């Protein structure tokens, strides 16, 4: 039965150009964050304090006497403009720094364990290249986008891996046993759902003790995101279990003498799988948005670790956005990632959920 679903799924996905684009974009994004330390010319903590809010480096391929050349860039020099009372950046045209591909640079560990120091691109020693400008601390925006993506694009999935099994089991137990158990369990789930989710999110995040390591913080934020999501999901599963448990195959396994836990996990819950797959794909964007919102407020992932949300924090002052539009790039990336997930999720729902078949 599963093979059938799978082959029709792939066939349908191949036909749908919009969905294919979504999958393509997601593939690029995930490959980029997987190879982030290789693609990024700098580490996420590399900073040049002299160059805070430097605009994107200009890369030239045509020299001043109109000849084609290897791509090169100039260094920025910071100047104070006494007329406007502002810092301005000018190109120091005295020395060219060539862009080199597959060059040695800062050491890093690919996939977290392979020691390596080759980068996709680097400039000659002494020069710096910031293709998307720098932030307040003079850190490379492009590199931080890649490292931030590692957090922003994975935290949602991790939270799902916690909240969905819990939701399934909770809904399964509640629906299967029924009666008082069901009543109590559902009232608890409803109570969680009755607290406006964003309020709950920020309050839980604020309760976290300060001074945690970044790994601890990441884990806790994941846990909090998972805590918000499970209740609504458990309720739907419970509704499905109520009707599944009346079917004959459940009766049959009970008569063989299978225990309740076994019946719930082995016989009933697998029946909800197509709904679960749809719900998972449609939930990922919500988690990505929740994490970025939390970090945007300064309650999620903390500096110096990058996440798309906390990078946008600097764009909160509109003076910043007006003169430094490159600070908005994380917002566009969140938008693109969420949009792609939505498009792919919609298509998967149309295929796996027969009720909606008439609609697409």
């Amino acid at each position, binding site marked *: 039965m599963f093979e059938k679903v799978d082959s029709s799924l792939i066939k349908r996905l191949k036909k749908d150009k*919009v969905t294919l684009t979504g999958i393509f974009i997601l593939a690029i994004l995930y490959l980029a964050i997987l190879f982030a330390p290789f693609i990024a010319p700098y580490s996420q903590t590399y900073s040049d304090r002299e160059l805070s809010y430097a605009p994107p480096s200009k890369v030239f391929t045509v020299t001043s006497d109109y000849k084609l050349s290897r791509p090169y860039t100039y260094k920025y020099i910071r100047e104070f403009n006494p007329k406007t009372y502002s810092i301005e950046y000018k190109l120091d045209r005295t020395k060219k720094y060539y862009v080199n591909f597959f060059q040695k640079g800062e050491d890093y560990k690919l996939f977290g364990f392979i020691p390596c120091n080759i980068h996709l691109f680097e400039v000659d020693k002494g020069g710096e290249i910031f293709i998307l400008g720098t932030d307040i601390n003079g850190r490379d925006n492009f590199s931080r986008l890649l490292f931030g993506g590692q957090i922003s694009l994975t935290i949602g999935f991790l939270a799902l891996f916690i909240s969905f099994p819990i939701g399934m089991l909770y809904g399964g137990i509640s629906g299967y046993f029924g009666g008082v158990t069901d009543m109590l369990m559902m*009232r*608890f789930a*409803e*109570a*969680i759902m*009755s*607290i*406006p*989710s*964003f*309020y*709950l999110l*920020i*309050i*839980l995040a*604020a*309760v976290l*003790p300060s001074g945690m390591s970044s790994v601890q913080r990441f884990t806790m934020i994941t846990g909090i995101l998972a805590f918000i999501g499970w209740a609504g999901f458990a309720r739907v599963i419970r509704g499905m279990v109520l009707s599944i448990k009346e079917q004959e195959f459940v009766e049959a396994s009970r008569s063989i003498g299978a225990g309740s836990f076994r019946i719930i996990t082995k016989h009933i819950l697998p029946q909800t799988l197509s709904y679960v797959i749809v719900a998972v794909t449609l939930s990922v*964007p919500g988690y990505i*948005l929740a994490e*970025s*919102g939390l970090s*945007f*407020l*300064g*309650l999620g992932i903390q500096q110096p670790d990058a996440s798309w949300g906390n990078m*946008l924090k600097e*764009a*909160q002052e*509109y003076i910043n*956005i*007006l003169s430094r539009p490159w600070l*908005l790039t994380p*917002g566009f990336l*969140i*938008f693109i990632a*969420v*949009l792609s997930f*939505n*498009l792919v999720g*919609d298509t998967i729902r149309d295929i796996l959920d027969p009720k*909606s078949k*008439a*609609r697409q």
Partner: protein
Amino acid sequence: MNIIAYSLKRTIEAIPLLILVSLISFSIIKLSPVDPLAELKLNPTITAQTLELEKQRLGLDLPFYQQYIHWGWNFLKGNLGVSTSGELVITRLAERIPNTLLLSFTTIFMTWIVGLPLGIYAALNWRKPVDRVLTVLSSVGMAIPSFFFALLLLVFAVKTGWFPVGGLTSVGFENFSLIHKILDVIHHLILPTTVLFTISLAGLQRQIRANLLDVLESDYVKMAKAKGLSENTVVYKHALRNAINPMVTLLGFEFASLLSGAALTEYVFQYPGLGRLVLEAVMKSDINLVMASLMIGSIMLVMGNLIADILLHIVDPRIGGN
């Protein structure tokens, strides 16, 4: 009579739910390592007497369950304690709740005014280019992070100078004439409403489209068509009414998600709403204020759902039966 009995039953059912909510919120707050009086002690304008009262009100030296009962009883009496700013929590909440309701209702109103016709139009032009375009547009609307969109609009406001940058009222609002006051508030509401509207519009338009498509497939619509009724009569008299009924439940959901979703938008636009109040309270670890606004938020959410359910009961006679 039936409606009244039903409403009463639902209201009574909501009470244990809210008690449970308060217990959960209370436990979460108690998990926090923050001393609830620490911030109050730092504020020199708060007298030692107020502090002592606060200590008694919270019953800080009592065991957990007694503290909870203490807090609950005070909450019912409307005694919500003092905020770290020295004001009463209840006055701060009273300032903010109407603003949040204003923003939510304007958004819901706008969403329905625009979303309903768009949903119908898409359903009637099913699978035609217009429908496809609307589907893609609604995907785009759903994918924009609210705070990011709010930031972009803020830049727009600063660049063009057409809209005020944040807040709800201009300087000197008290001295404006009534009409001027109303216009001023509307002027301030446009941008935050646009953000929330864009995000909730997409969901509503899709839902109406899907519901209407479902209803158009049903037997009684086919029957009505077979009788030779005109297309318009079939759609607007028979199909639409039944497609909209389930949407009434969505009103409750929409209100709930607005309460949550508005927080970030309020924060970016410096809009004096409940969401921003919670945020500020959380950041200043103003425990009294956090606890009270959490409860008020939940009560508003539960009431929103309750009203939606009762409305559904009124508009859909099929549900009234059981």
